[in-house]
């Protein structure tokens, strides 16, 4: 596809860039297939802004014809200009930055706005920037090696006695969102896994994600069982879970839905592990918000942060009303519960909600951070994210398509990953000496996932 057809005006001179906390600067604006570039072209202390179009969440444009309404809608700045017309584009980014561009010439302004609107939300994944990005110091072959189940398994010698690496998902046929290799109990063969997968939503059968060296207990995650309204059972799934706690008297299931929600899920074919079929598992329900309500919460939070009334009461009530911090608190306390089950009570735990691609990952990641010092190092944390989010099939592209400013109708957007980063930040605030990385890494991760949802991985697989 040619990007050029969307770019009618590639260059505009004499553009004024305004950003909060920066003095306005005047320079040249340039649009390419993936970027917006602004440069004031000063020799010394030059200011440049390189913005990935994909990072743009919403734009607002206002044009005016100065011949008709001299300076009517404009700031003091423009009316000085004697040209016939001009326009202003306000760009709101997914990483929550806001930029304002004053562009001389109404037509140019409309052209630029049109290009941004089109290029910032291209539908086809293969047109997105990661497919064009060629860092000079990296080759494509070796950079995907940060962590994989294979590597994870080979590093954990203690695991080998009771757990094995299965390649049942070699061609992504058993579960499209799982990696090719998964860690499962030794005693369970691949056929059993295949049958168990049919009993779990999206084929996400229970697999190991964490082994607690201190007492040999594990965290396992999956999606909900497809028990449905008439309480179907699956012998293989029961066997698989039995094998997980083999030798121990019981295990916990942390369901990230309320028990009422879990009951209701049976109407649509989902469900939960009943006491009668999984007699040695004890279910704990902790309701966690996800999907639309989480997205709406973020929108309210961002709106509260942008409030300019400087009124303390209004800020606190908006903050409370957004419920964002309540979600942070719930996530951290549920992860704390999971960690307590494993570390203090000495039992293995299965985590799932419905799809098992959002809150389950959030909880298992946080619990690993809480329990395992290695996950708190820079390398360990990145490997953890690679395993628990990228490889575990968090649908980044759907969840991060839009951010808090977009007026587009919400579909599958949900800031679960951002919620994770916020929770990690809160842990860092409470234990400033325990993490091997700083706020800067979290901020960078937050803006990277917003700008270019990590899609390469999925495509490499398919």
């Amino acid at each position, binding site marked *: 596809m040619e990007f050029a057809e969307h770019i009618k005006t590639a260059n505009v001179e004499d553009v004024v860039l305004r950003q909060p906390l920066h003095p306005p600067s005047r320079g040249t604006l340039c649009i390419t297939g993936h970027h917006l570039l602004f440069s004031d072209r000063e020799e010394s202390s030059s200011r440049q802004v390189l913005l990935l179009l994909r990072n743009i969440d919403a734009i607002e444009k206002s044009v005016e014809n100065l011949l008709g309404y001299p300076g009517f809608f404009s700031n003091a700045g423009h009316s000085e200009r004697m040209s016939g017309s001009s326009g202003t584009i306000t760009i709101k980014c997914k990483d929550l930055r806001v930029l304002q561009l004053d562009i001389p010439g109404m037509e140019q302004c409309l052209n630029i706005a049109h290009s941004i609107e089109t290029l910032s939300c291209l539908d086809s994944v293969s047109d997105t920037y990661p497919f064009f990005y060629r860092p000079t110091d990296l080759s494509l072959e070796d950079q995907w090696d940060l962590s994989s189940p294979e590597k994870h398994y080979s590093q954990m010698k203690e695991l080998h006695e009771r757990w094995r690496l299965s390649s049942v998902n070699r061609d992504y046929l058993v579960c499209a969102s799982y990696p090719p290799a998964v860690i499962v109990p030794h005693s369970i063969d691949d056929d059993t896994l295949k049958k168990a997968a049919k009993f779990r939503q999206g084929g996400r059968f229970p697999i190991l994600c964490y082994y607690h060296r201190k007492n040999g207990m594990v965290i396992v995650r999956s999606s909900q069982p497809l028990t449905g309204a008439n309480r179907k059972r699956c012998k293989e799934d029961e066997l698989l879970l039995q094998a997980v706690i083999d030798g121990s008297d019981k295990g916990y299931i942390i369901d990230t839905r309320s028990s009422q929600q879990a009951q209701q899920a049976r109407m649509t074919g989902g469900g939960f592990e009943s006491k009668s079929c999984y007699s040695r598992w004890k279910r704990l329900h902790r309701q966690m918000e996800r999907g639309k309500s989480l997205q709406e919460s973020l929108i309210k939070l961002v709106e509260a942060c942008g409030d300019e009334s400087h009124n303390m*009461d209004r800020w606190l009530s908006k903050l*409370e009303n957004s419920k964002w911090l309540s979600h942070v608190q719930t996530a951290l306390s549920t992860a704390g519960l999971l960690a307590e089950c494993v570390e203090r009570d000495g039992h293995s735990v299965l985590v799932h909600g419905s799809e098992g691609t959002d809150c389950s990952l959030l909880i298992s990641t946080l619990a690993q951070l809480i329990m395992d010092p290695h996950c708190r190092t820079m390398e360990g944390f990145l490997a953890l994210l690679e395993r628990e989010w990228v490889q575990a099939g968090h649908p980044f592209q759907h969840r991060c398509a839009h951010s808090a400013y977009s007026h587009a109708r919400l579909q599958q957007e949900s800031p679960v990953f951002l919620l994770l980063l916020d929770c990690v930040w809160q842990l860092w605030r409470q234990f400033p000496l325990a993490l091997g990385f700083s706020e800067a890494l979290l901020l960078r991760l937050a803006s990277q996932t917003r700008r270019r949802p990590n899609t390469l991985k999925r495509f490499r697989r398919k």
Partner: protein
Amino acid sequence: MEHIRTPKVEQVRLLDRSAGQRKASVGTLYLSATHTIFVENNPETRRETWVLHSMVSSVERPPSTPTGSQLILRCKDFRVFHIFIPQERDSVDVHASLVRLSRPEKYSELYCLSFNPNVNKEEREESWNFTDLTADYKRMGVPNNLWVATAANSEYRVCDTYPSELFVPKSATPAIIVGSSRFRSRGRFPALSYFHQDTLAAVCRCSQPLSGFSGRSQEDEMMLQAVMKSNPGSDYIYVVDTRPKLNAMANRAAGKGYENEDHYTNIKLQFIGIENIHVMRSSQQKIIDVGEMRAPSMTDFLWGLENSGWLKHIKAVLDAGVFIARAVADEGISVLVHCSDGWDRTAQACSVASILLDPYYRTIKGLMALIEKDWVSFGHKFSHRYAHLDGDPKEVSPVIDQFLECVWQLSEQFPCAFEFNERFLIAIHTHVYSCQYGTFLGNCQKERRDMRLCERSHSVWPQLWKDRAEYANPLYKAELSQSQGVLRPNTTPYCFKMWKGLYNHVEKSTPPRQSPADFLAAVKEESQQLEEELTNHQEVPPGGPTHQQQGSRQEDSNPDGEANHMGEGGGSEEDD
């Protein structure tokens, strides 16, 4: 002693959640003339807990239960002790004694007049000269050809709540001063609080004018004119009334009020809207309750925080300081600050502005000088506000608490700009209430002189200075550009946080809080020791190195200075 009916009770259980205790410990309770002392029975630890009577703000006795009866001791530093006493009769006695002991009726009952740290007479006298206000004014460049010392208030003739030494505009004659003071509430005429050498603009303070609806005073108008003339760079001054405008207007009905802009030429009147002491008192009670909540939901917490209004008030005080600092530093305009009597909100606004304007006040010694100047010498009513004696509860209000919290909020925004840490602010807070030293006793300079406090008690500043290692902020960098010059804080609401270190003792200790600053300080100290050792090795000729630097590391001592008076002098008193 006559108030102590039962000096010793055994088999008492004490629960101190602020020290991270989950279960009560069993021990013996002693009442001395100055302290409640609890000694644990456990022979291994025998931990002692000392609570100064003057730190107790209330003693509650909930209905007894079969297992014994309970006393709840709430302290002025927001710690709470639960004491379980087996015999009801004992608990009635202890309760009655504590109620009486925690509310002294006369100054002579106060701890500072019996407290005797290990110093001789000379050292004590010397301690009172530790903060030298004349030197501080000199540091600002005063007196000069714009501001001069006046003898008008010597022997407190013109205003009995002001210090005897004051600086006024050069053109203000004694007649103008006296005339102006007659037109000001309680005679508190405009006087210099801070002089900014860079712009030659000044911060002055006074009380509200007795203008009513139409009153005016020629001398007072001349006084304000003189303030303006003492700043060669400007042709007007700001008059900052720190009250909400409605309150100021209401005061006119009582013959007080604010400056009429028609009568005073070249002034710009600005209202800031800091609420009065009564609003602040009830607001603080609410935030204390928020701090004591156990495992609140996020909604409960945020709602409690909002409902308390506390951060809103802190923001108002900081906003006042920011307005003044901006006028002085950026516009070069002098500011006259007042509220009603000019000793609460005015002290807050002036001292916050000084902290923003002058890096010196962000050092340990500087903050001492600032408090000595804007609060102690200018007649902030410490004994009334902090209930040193049993008196009118309506006079009590956390005015200096709010100033200290503003400094803390600033230190969170500018972590490298302050020489001291949070513990220093909390230590000052404790001593404002504790009456252990004479510094904060009384309500004005005259009262302190009449009580001969300098001869009968000690100053707190040298003691705090002695412990400065514990109060040092390892991140402080005086030469950093951020730490220099004027601080320009962000005052959007989300920049204000709840001061957990002061209001939430429970969380502070379970689990033990990690403090990067303490870690850094320890690393710094260690590397310093290693360096010293290295130089020792280099200096000493081969064969005979001496190791005398070892073991100089301090043990972690109690953060609120309670350890200072552990075991001191209490022995004889308990037996009475």
